[in-house]
Each structure stands twice: as C-alpha cells, then as structure tokens.
C-alpha cells in the first residue's frame, strides 16, 4: 500500500508550524499506524532529514501516549482504540492522511506531533487521590463493595489519560477525563471522605488550565479509546452541585 501523508511539523513550543507532505511506500496492511510512521521516519533519516517526532510507548493501547488526530479523528478512524492500535488495513490504498497533534490551549505542542498534557497531571494532583498514607489501612476485605459498584468504578477508572476527549470536544473540554476520576472515587467507599473537596478542587484546576466547558455533544465518549461513558460527566456535575450547594 502507498499513502500520502500531510503531517504537522513544528520546531518547538514557540514556533509556527506547518504541514509537510510525505509519501509512505511499501506499507503492508498489518502494519500499525505508528509502524507506518516508523517507516516514513526511516526514509527521512536516510535522507538526513529530521524524522517526525511523536509520542508513543507501550504500543498496546494502554499507556495513553498517542496524541494524534488522524484523518479528522482523535486516534483515527476506529472505535475504541488508541492510534497505536490502528492498523493500515483501516485505510484505502492511496489515501491522503492528514496527521496533526491534538489541539487545545491546555495541550501546547512541544514538537511536531508531541504535545504537553501535564495539565492532566496537575488536575490529578489537585484532588485525584484518596488521602491515605502507606500502611495503617484496614484489611482489603473490611469494607465490602457491591460488585455492580466496583464494576462501574472500574469502567470509569479505565481512563488512560490520552486526551482524546479533549481533542474531540469542540470546546477542548477535559470534562470526561476529570469525570472519570471523580466518578471512580465517588462510587467507592474509600473516596467518600474527600468527596466534596475533590470535585471542587479538580474542577477548579480544570478551569484554571484553560480547558473549555462541556456542552454535551458527547463527542468525547464516541472517541474515547476506553469508551468511557458520559454518564460519568453527569455524575461529576451532580457531585459538584451537591458539593457547592451543600
């Protein structure tokens, strides 16, 4: 297979970027999208040009490093997977593929397709934890948790922090990301003690980081590689209102 790529190249945080065109040749359908980029980069290095910089690590859809908007979609044209799990068989031979970084005020571009998502970490630092120190905790089975609640908490906790929700949202809102953590800890008994402070602190940090607000288009849920439900956003809103009014 052969493809024409239109890839966003940007030297650093402060410089203006632009699109460059590349051709990817001799690509096999079983190559992943990142392996296709590896092949393009290999050719670039052989031509003594700087390869395309992109974040990647586990390449099995769990580390959340991928931050690319491929053919107009966060993580490309597939449901429920990160860019590293996208294979070239999802494209038609000869396709023109536009690749740009996730775009948001809160996710500045560092270089080419590499973005800075540390805003997510700062939101987590604001309250995405249970304040327990190591040691001195009760036995794991001391507090039973209904299976349905534990399962629901897990589904929220499955978030990989990739930022596809922000990328897909027309408002670049981080609501689904924040809601996933708020929801997980609001569901579990361990999270009850700091329930009120947590949601307020995390949302305040989200606003401070310059993310937009949710206008309920549900694009985040549709593009989330872990298919995290927007019902978590509803729960977060409820938590917030209870905290703010209570």
């Amino acid at each position, binding site marked *: 297979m052969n493809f024409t790529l239109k890839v966003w190249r940007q030297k650093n945080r402060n410089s203006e970027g632009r699109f460059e065109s590349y051709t990817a040749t001799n690509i*096999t*359908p*079983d*190559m*992943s999208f990142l*392996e296709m980029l*590896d092949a393009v980069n*290999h050719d670039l*290095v*052989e031509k*003594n*040009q*700087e*390869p395309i*910089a992109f974040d*990647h*690590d*586990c*390449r*099995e859809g*769990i*580390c*959340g*490093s991928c931050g690319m908007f491929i053919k107009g979609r966060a993580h490309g044209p597939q449901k429920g997977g990160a860019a590293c*799990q996208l294979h070239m*068989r999802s494209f038609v031979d000869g396709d023109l593929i536009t690749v740009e970084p996730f775009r948001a005020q809160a996710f500045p571009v*560092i*270089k080419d397709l590499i973005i800075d*998502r*540390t805003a*997510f*970490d700062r939101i*987590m*630092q*604001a309250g*995405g*934890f*249970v304040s*327990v*120190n*190591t*040691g001195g*905790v*009760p036995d*794991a*089975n001391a507090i*039973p*948790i*209904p*299976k349905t609640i*534990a*399962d629901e908490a*897990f589904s929220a*906790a*499955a978030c*990989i*922090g990739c930022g596809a929700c922000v990328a897909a949202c027309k408002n670049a809102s981080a609501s689904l990301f924040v809601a996933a953590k708020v929801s*997980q800890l609001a569901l*579990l008994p*361990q999270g009850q003690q700091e329930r009120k402070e947590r949601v307020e602190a995390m949302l305040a940090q989200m606003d401070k980081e310059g993310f937009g607000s949710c206008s309920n288009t549900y694009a985040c849920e549709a593009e989330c590689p872990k298919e995290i439900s927007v019902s978590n956003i509803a729960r977060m809103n409820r938590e917030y209102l209870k905290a703010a009014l209570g």
Partner: protein
Amino acid sequence: MTLDAKIPDGPLEKKWDTHRFNLKLVNPSNKRKYHIIVVGTGLAGASAAASLAELGYRVTSLCYHESPRRAHSIAAQGGINAPKNYPNDDDSIWRLFYDTVKGGDFRAREANVYRLAQVSGSIIDQCVAQGVPFAREYGGLLDNRSFGGAQVSRTFYARGQTGQQLLLGAYSALSRQIHKGQVKFYDRRDMMDLVVIDGQARGVIVRNMINGELETYIGDAVILATGGYGNVFYLSTNAKQSNATAIWRAHKKGAFFANPCFTQIHPTCIPLASEHQSKLTLMSESLRNDGRIWVPKQKGDKRSPKDIPMEERDYYLERLYPSFGNLVPRDVASRRAKEVCDQGRGVGSTGLAVYLDFADAIARNGKQWVEEKYGNLFDMYQRITGENAYQTPMRIYPAVHYTMGGLWVDYNLMSTIPGMFVLGEANFSDHGANRLGASALMQGLADGYFVIPYTIGDYLATNKFKPVKEDHEAFTESKKAISEKTEQLMSAQGKRTVDDLHKELGKILWEHVGMARNEAGLKKAISMITALRKQFWSDVRIPGKANDLNPELEKAHRVADFMELGEMIARDALHREESCGCHLREEYQTDENEAKRNDKKFAYVAAWEFGGTGKAPKLHKEALKFENVHLTQRSYK
C-alpha cells in the same frame, strides 16, 4: 570485594521482623533534612517516592515520560498475587514463598522471597484503600483467580488491566505528595549517569529531553526503579522506550549486574507479521486452558489450517507432556514452539508461529462460552492481525517479556554502590531464573511501599553526608563525558539508522541468546555483538541537533548501552553451564530434553563487575543457601 547480602540470621519467618527492629531509624524531624532521588515512576518508583515523601523525606522524582502514569507497569494484564487465603483453599505465606522459589528454579534468595510473600498481603490492603477497583464477588468481597505455577487462587485482578489500576493507585499517592510540595517531580528527563562522590551515590545527571540540556540533581541517596532490559532484544512485549541506560550506567559506575542471562520468554504472544514490526503484544496465557497448540507434521506445509486433516497435525505439547499437555510452564512451552519452528514446521507467512486452536473448545462448549471467557483476547487478536480466531486458529509465538536479572542488591535493596538502591524489575532480587505470573506487580510494590521506606532509613541514619554542590568536579566530569558521548554519536553521520542497528543486535540475541543457548552460539554471539558495536559507533546516523528534542539521539544513547549489555548477557549465559528456569543450555538437558540444573556448581547468583567496554567483566559469586526448601528437578511429563 566480597558480596554481603546482609541476610539476617534467625528462622526464615522471623528474619524480616528481626531485621526491621535492628535497622536504625531517622527521627521524624530529621527526615526532612534528607533528600532522596527516585528515578522512574512505575509501580516501584511511584510507590517508593510517595511512601518516602509521606514519611517526611524530601524527594525528587524523575521520569522520561510526560507523566508518571505512562510507565510500562501500566501494561501488566493478569493480576497480583497475595496469599490472603480469601478463597479458603489453604494458601499461606509459606506456600507463596515455596511456589516462587520453586518457580524460579531455585536460583533466588530464600530470605528475599519469604519477605516478598510476607508483605504481599499489605499491598492489597493498601491498593484497596487508595481506591483501586479490584474485581469483586457478588457478596462485595474481593475475587481471586488462579494463575500459572500455583495450585491455589491467590491472584487479585482488575479485569485485564491490573497493572494499570495499581499504577494509577501509586500515581495518585505520588500526585498527592507532588501537590503538597514534598515531591519535586520532573518529567521528560532521561537519566544519563549516576554520580558517586567519596564512595557514595550522591546524584544523577539527566538529559532534559525537550531542550537537550544536561541537568544535575543532588541527593543523599539515589533509588533506581527504571524497569527491565527486555528491549535489548529489540522485539519484546516491553514499551518502546523501556531501556537499560539508567542501570547500565550505574553498573559502569560500580554497581554489579546479577544474572543478566535470566530473561523470560512468554509463550503466548501475537507473532511477528513483518519486518517492520516494532513490538510484540502479549495475550494472557489463560488461553492455554482451552486452546490446543499444534503445527503440521510435514515441513513447509503451507495449506490453510482447515485443510490439514487431524492425522497430519502434531499437537506436540500433548504428545511430549501427556499429563500437563498445553499447560506446561512458560519456559517449556516457549522452547518447544521454537523447536518445531526451527524444524521448518512453523505456520503463517514467516514460519515463526504455531497454532493455538479453539475449534475443539467451540465444538465442545459453543462459541458463546468461548466468547464469554476470552472475548476480549479474541477482539485484541482480531484488531492486530485482522483475523477472526473463532473461524481460524490463532497464531502465537514466544516473545521476550521480563528480565529476572538486574542490578545486584542486598537484603536492603542496596546495590554495591553505597547509597544507590534498586527496586522492581531493575534489580535481580526475587524471581530467580524464572518469574511466575502475577508476581512482577507484587515485587514492584513490595519494594516501593514496604521495603525501601525502612531500609533506606538505616543507610541515612548510619552514614554521614558531606554537602556537595553542582559545581563539584564529579558532576562536571560526568556531564563532560556525556556530552562527549553525545557528540561522538551525533558526529558519526554514518549510513544506518539506530533502529536498524538495534534490530540487528536483537536478531543476534534472539538467535543465540534466546530460548535455547549453546556454547558455540554464545561465543559466536559475543564476537558478532563486538563487531556490531564497532559498527554502531562508526556507522550510526542521527539527524537533528543534540540540544533539541531528538528521539533518534535518545534511542542512540539507549542502544549504545544495549550493545554492551547484550554482550554481557551472552557472557553470563556462556558461563552458566547448566540449564535452569528460562535459561536452557542445549548441552545440559535430561534425556527427555528437559532443563538440567547443576546445583553443586551453579547454585549462586552471578554478579558481574564492569571491566571496561569490550573487556571481560569480573564474576563475583553470591552462594545461595537453601535451608527451608528441598531442591528438586521439575518434571511435567
């Protein structure tokens, strides 16, 4: 130098408690005077950084990812062991200890393994308290499942994402300390060197991966929790960035490297599809419970699997191991798969795969039953290969997965460099020659949450630390050496990409230092690696600039270290003239082609001291004493 593992005296069950009592404490108000550097933010690093900060130490945490949450611990699927005995199937600390020592083919320290089993229960308590959503029963209590190498159910899990959930728990504890200011966290920093002053580890030099600047971090102790070195093989189940640079450079500064040849090859991975493939993906080995493994009897039989009649198929594991069948341990299953492929009977376009067939399970129990049990794995397989495994058998092949070897540490997890501690997969401590499933997460968290917080205090309380500054010559010299190395890499301007050279190294290792090893092959590998290393330094091509975000340069530094480490793995494998665990020397097999240990000669930890690049390292031996378990030969016939 003689190796002192500092294993406490007394009965096995009392060793850790006695030792803890004898450890010196740092007074609470003095803790803030000590500064600890933690490199790596996976399970071991994040849990250590958080726990030490909670105690009051000032902690600097460094990682090469953009966020601590992206460390490769996140990819662990199966679960984490703890002998809670919740299922009432007669599990105990002793049983977990015994299974682990036996699973490691009697090449681990009894005392370490016992301590691991002792603290593992607390890990589960801790994680639950952090809000880790483990799987539960309808009654609301925690669920357990069984895993390879054990006859009890002691594995706690969170769907297929246990590593992720545990890491996010440790990450949340770390985040809390970062917010409090107790931990200073720096992202996108690649450790380039360990700095030793007056015989003490006192700091690290890191490369800021965004602007290429070399930065200095000074502390009273340094903890490396930087993971395993499986990527030396190029293709592995490790993340692409996983590397050995931190431990290797510490090794070059005096830390001994233990049992480097103990590398685990996992049997159920999705096989290589093409030369371009960048990594391998593991599928849970639970698939072997219901799938049957086979290859055609005929060499080079390229027929579609459904056209190969039953009598022309070789269910080789069932044939060779009638009692264990497809459920033989990881090392045996891997080795036999390689053997049939070497005979030319491998399947798929590359001939490097065997079938894992669910046709019988589907015929017996129905597709729905298989779907309920393994649906997510079948989906994953389809996503990667584009094939529907309900209709055609899966193709699997072994892949490098975990490295039991690592930097040598004593019972306190301190390396041979005073003040440098090594945790998690980066050290060698607990798994011997083979790691059992669901015990990597256990070890990483045990080290970080429940061992290092105590043992590091003793080191700090019993040593004096001269104040040092950034302009100390040890730092400036180290920086200079790194800059020169970088300059040498950048200026080579050869013809080959870093990945090309890395792939070639990987092939040599996979071929000769992989699942089955022999003297001739290992000697050949050593000379091939030596030649390749020369070529690397003269023929590598790195575009771009050194003082910029430059992924090719990052890789080059890592591969430069792999070129040296690869040779040491081969040397260690060559010297160990026995087969044990995952290390199979073809010369040392039983009549039935099984691993044959030589406990008389090799019941020791091989700890290698760096002797200079291209020079033979010096071997130190730490004898392993087995006072509580009886050494036996494994058999699965």
